[in-house]
């Protein structure tokens, strides 16, 4: 799928620098990144600060454009998490964000996404063993999104299940991801593009109860 420049393993400055280094067609990348910023803009204020609103980051125009797009993805995933799963508490630190460098999707190939999600879930004391199932749900959505910045959500059941007749209590890992694919340059003279993905993924555990009938 590509290499993850993630806040879990890199600093914000490193994410921006690595992404900037990769971009060879600045006007095209800027155009796509601005569209991601516009599209993933949450429609209401989110009660957390965007991660890149800091003064010690690189101050090139391209760097600012990248950081704005990541900020939008971050805010959108958090906004949608609360909208889709209002009863699940999302701790402030439970959001991974960054850029997938050299994005090259292959149908059914979840390895690098699974590895990244496993790292994320481990880092947040969630269930890393569910990373494969989450990747299986998320990867096709990113692939099919094409040039439309999008968001999707899902849930994966954890092994924590309790039955106290007549009540069944199941713990789930609830997740929301926001992402936007952008062009970084051209591969060859024919004009085939290289791509990267701005992304943000929020996840938290929650409980669903149902009554045995």
């Amino acid at each position, binding site marked *: 799928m590509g290499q993850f420049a993630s806040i879990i393993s890199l600093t914000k400055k490193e994410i921006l620098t690595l992404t900037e280094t990769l971009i060879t067609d600045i006007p095209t990348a800027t155009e796509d990144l601005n*569209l991601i910023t*516009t*599209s*993933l*803009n949450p*429609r*209401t204020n989110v009660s957390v600060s965007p991660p890149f609103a800091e003064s010690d980051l690189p101050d090139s125009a391209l760097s600012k454009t990248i950081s704005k797009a990541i900020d939008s993805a971050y805010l*959108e995933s958090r906004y*949608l998490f609360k*909208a*889709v799963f209002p009863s699940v508490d999302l701790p402030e630190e439970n959001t991974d964000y960054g850029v997938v460098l050299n994005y090259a999707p292959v149908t059914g190939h979840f390895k690098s996404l699974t590895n990244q999600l496993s790292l994320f879930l481990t880092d947040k004391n969630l269930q890393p063993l569910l990373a494969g199932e989450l990747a299986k749900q998320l990867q*096709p*959505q*990113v692939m*099919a*999104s*094409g*040039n*439309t*910045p*999008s*968001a*999707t*959500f899902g849930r994966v059941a954890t092994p924590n299940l309790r039955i106290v007749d007549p009540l069944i209590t199941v713990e789930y890992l609830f997740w929301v991801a*926001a992402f936007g694919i952008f062009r970084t340059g051209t591969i060859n003279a024919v004009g085939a593009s290289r791509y990267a993905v701005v992304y943000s993924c929020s996840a938290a555990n929650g409980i669903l109860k149902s009554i045995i009938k």
Partner: protein
Amino acid sequence: MENADHIQSVQITHNSIIAETPPTIPLSVAIDRATSWRKMITSLPAESKLPQTNAAGDSVGPLIPAQLIFRAININMRDIDLLKQEHPDASSVRLYMSIPDPDFPLQICGMLVPVDAQNNDMLTRSSDANISREDMLQNEAYSTVYDFTQPCPTLCNTTSPLFDSLNSVEPYLRYTK
């Protein structure tokens, strides 16, 4: 009383007819309709002051970017349940299109409004003599206009054949071979 009984009887008959013949359309028709919608949207100019035209009179102005094609509105089922609980007397729900932030004109959202048996929008809750007109207009506590929808983009099912006709329909056919 006779009239009331008659009305009740008609409603039951009406409901039972609806239950037997749900107003669905074939999936292939739905895919065609969604495709036509996307084609229509992409032919619109991106700004209201456009279109710019060429010598032949054809629109050549900047079109709505493919990334921003408005496709759908997602509504949480529990919110519909809540609306039904709060307005048991509503006969239908009307979805108004809206733009929450004029700076983002393509982020289109829906506003759901319960509709009474006379086709009137139910825009405020039961009247209260102590509530001012200003409160009725400005305070969400007195409003029955629901804003819990999420547009696509961004909240999409990007693998759906309704999102893009190039997507495979197979994963969505829940049949047993």
